[in-house]
């Protein structure tokens, strides 16, 4: 190991231990290689074991409120600013909510263009996580020096040529999104009843070539996952270890055959044994999803209404559920394309059948989904209708209420708009992917902290493994912080030993 790297490494361990000795409190700030801000606050007990770990979202914005009074048709562009990494997910959920608001079906061609762009987006976003955000933990190693646990380390490990191939592939996919959507960060194609721009016949051959390369790219990524992760016993042990395992409910969007679909379908929930609990349409989400508030994080914690909020515990009695790749695979009965289906079968076979409760298996599930996204792109580009110019149905109905749902890379995403007769927003509710996962992520971080930190022994590698517990979800705290509180009164509660509030002090 390089000398300066070694000394930074030693220093980090020393600092972490000194921090513990001084305060019995470890703060990981900022948590890194995720989208948006986050903080982990770990409290140790007298013996140096973990008493409690808080996984916090330390900021919020105000989309649900500052959208009020604005024209609903602006929402696909406004809500894409909730997240610039998954703008296409918000853009599409909002566009579908507008279809519903104006009771207008998109034309068949428009629907295909949307789904094409959407699958291209899912592929490039998953690739971002595999190679840049989460992947370095495996490709470079969870205990590697922090200086190398990133895209630079990945390129050093896999070689510049492979690195360049990944970078160029991602750029080409993003160029496809920009071609249809104008911008790739915050695209503009979505309108109720259709899309603003379609695909020209003369560009089709190039796009078909791209889709072919995408399938090869996804296959190549699966191969890398096999070679680097699955062939390494240590990693497999890590993935299946108890402190990265939670038995919860799982949610995902499915087609009519209960196969994973990112763009459209019904929402399906299965219980911790994998048995179906419920199926519902976007319009029925309020019958199934509720949010719980805690004072130590700005994010709200979603749970299943039919099971209820039982605190931060897993199991069938607790309404905590998961979304995102692992949850989608668990909630489904398969993948709708052949290569993805094969990868899906292997996934469950190796990990001991459905459902898989190992959080870190999200990384593998993500690669299975990359295959589906690429194959689906190819199917859509081989459909002659994809170049049709029949791209819009103009709304004629009076708007009132509209709801839309898509599977964001990080899980199920709900948009709910209500307007006056003129289409001006009077109510907005957004339940984003990372919010759905927030409670399970809090469980994961605490379990990892408790499982890994013993007798006050802390080092940088261990703390990184605590971070891996949330990183597997590819969480988006930019999304999670979409709502904004203002000035908060300081309130102190004085409680008795039973936890009952005896007195409340306000500043």
């Amino acid at each position, binding site marked *: 190991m390089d000398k*300066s790297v070694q000394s*930074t490494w030693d220093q980090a361990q020393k600092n972490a231990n000194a921090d513990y000795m001084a305060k019995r409190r470890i703060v*990981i*700030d900022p*948590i*890194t290689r995720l*989208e948006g*801000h986050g903080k982990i*606050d770990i409290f140790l007990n007298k013996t140096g074991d973990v008493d409690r770990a*808080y996984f916090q979202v*330390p900021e*919020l914005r*105000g989309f*649900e*409120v*500052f959208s*009020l009074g604005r024209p609903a*048709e602006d929402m696909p*562009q406004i809500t894409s*600013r909730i*997240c*610039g*990494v998954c*703008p296409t997910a918000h853009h599409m959920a909002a566009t579908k909510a507008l279809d519903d608001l104006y009771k207008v079906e998109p034309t068949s061609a428009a629907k295909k263009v949307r789904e094409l762009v959407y699958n291209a987006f899912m592929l490039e976003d998953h690739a971002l996580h595999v190679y*840049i955000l989460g992947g370095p933990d495996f490709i470079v190693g969870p205990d590697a020096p*922090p*200086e190398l646990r990133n*895209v630079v380390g990945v390129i050093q490990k896999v070689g510049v040529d492979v690195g360049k191939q990944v*970078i*160029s592939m*991602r*750029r080409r996919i993003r160029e496809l999104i920009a071609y249809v959507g*104008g*911008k790739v*960060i915050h*695209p*503009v194609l979505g*309108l*109720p*009843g259709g899309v*603003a*721009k379609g695909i020209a016949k003369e560009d089709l051959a190039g796009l078909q070539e791209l889709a072919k390369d995408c399938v090869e790219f996804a296959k190549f990524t699966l191969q890398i996952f096999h070679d680097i992760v699955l062939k390494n016993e240590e990693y497999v042990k890590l993935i299946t270890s108890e402190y990265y395992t939670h038995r919860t409910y799982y949610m995902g969007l499915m087609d009519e055959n209960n196969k994973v679909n990112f763009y459209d379908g019904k929402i399906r929930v299965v219980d911790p044994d994998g048995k179906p609990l419920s199926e519902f349409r976007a319009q029925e989400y*309020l019958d199934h999803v509720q*949010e719980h*508030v805690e*004072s*130590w*994080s700005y994010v*709200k914690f979603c749970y299943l209404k039919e099971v209820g909020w039982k605190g931060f515990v897993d199991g069938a009695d607790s309404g905590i559920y998961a979304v995102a790749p692992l949850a989608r695979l668990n909630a489904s009965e398969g993948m709708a394309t052949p290569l993805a289906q094969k990868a899906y079968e292997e996934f469950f076979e190796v990990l001991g059948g459905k459902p898989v409760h190992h959080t870190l298996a999200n990384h593998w599930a993500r690669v299975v989904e990359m295959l589906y996204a690429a194959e689906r792109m190819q199917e859509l580009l081989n459909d002659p209708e994809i170049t049709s110019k029949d791209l819009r149905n103009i709304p004629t109905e009076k708007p009132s209420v509209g709801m839309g749902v898509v599977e964001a890379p990080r899980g199920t995403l709900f948009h709910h708009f209500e307007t006056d007769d003129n*289409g*001006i927003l009077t109510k907005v*509710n957004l339940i984003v992917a990372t919010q759905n996962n927030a409670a399970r992520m809090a469980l994961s971080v605490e379990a990892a902290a408790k499982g890994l930190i013993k007798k006050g022994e802390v080092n940088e590698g261990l703390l990184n493994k605590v971070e891996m517990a949330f990183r597997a979800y590819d969480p988006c705290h930019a999304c999670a912080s979409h*709502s904004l*509180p*203002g000035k*908060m009164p*300081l*309130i102190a*509660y004085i409680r008795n030993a039973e*936890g009952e509030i005896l007195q409340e002090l306000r500043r």
Partner: protein
Amino acid sequence: MSANPEKPKVAFYWCASCGGCEESVVDLAEDILMVLDKVDIVFWPVAMDFKKADVVAMPDKSILATLVNGAIRTSEQEEMVQLLRRKSQVLIAYGACSHLGGIPALTNEFSREEVLQYVYHDAPSVVNKEGTRPQPVTEDEGRNPTLPEFRNVVRSLDQVVDVDYYLPGCAPTPKLLKEALLVLLSGELPPKGTVLAPDIALCDECPRKDSKPTDVSFTEFKRPHLHRIDPELCLLAQGFICMGPATRGGCEALCINGNMPCTGCFGPTSRVKDQGAKMLSSVSSNMAAKEENEIDRVLDGIPDPVGTFYRYGLSKCLLRRKVTAGE
């Protein structure tokens, strides 16, 4: 990386933002290898594991340039940009939120209480019988997890710390970022306060420029979801509000290439004091209608003037925030 002390150090940091600016750095694509070759990235939370303590440990002015994206709203963001200002020779406001407040600044139209009340109590999916709200300090059986404090308004970066340069856009394009980095590395720095993008109106680089009438005479304003959009013709000539005339170019008309109007994310050119006022005055002076009733009817096509004319610039414009009783 840090093994080579010769390379200039660069940092990226985010405040109240969506991550699009971070993504635009990744969108340097092949050029990111050039950047990694020429500079040492010493802090970049989205992609690298350096922590705040690593920045604190650096000598003052040891970072050549820090690019900060996102607006400023919390105590934590203030502390971080003050810290990064101290450690950096050059501080760049990167992207619309940092430059002008961006979309999060639309919140300045609402009181904090309105937002709190809705998010934690009134939102249809919330169940909160205890009336819990997030707190700066939580007392939980002897443990005290903390959260940053929120300020009154959303501010641009230069309303909090001294800023040297600006890179506009929601998000800036990788091309502009690359040019800015090359300028920084060349050592031949432009005057302080420069916006590192072409100082021309978007209309000048619009592919539909030739179809823009010299005198637009508005008889109605169309909302894009209710009308077909001609993919060749100037959007203003079709009656759609396109912010091109009041907005700086440099994006190469991306939204218009997507067959949708410009919404103004690059902010004004150096010759325009207030982007929204400029657009509003341009629109009003080109109204065909002269009677009050008729003017009102035409203006019905712009149901949300603040969101239309100031979508990205509410922190830095002539409008102040909404004043609410009790604040």
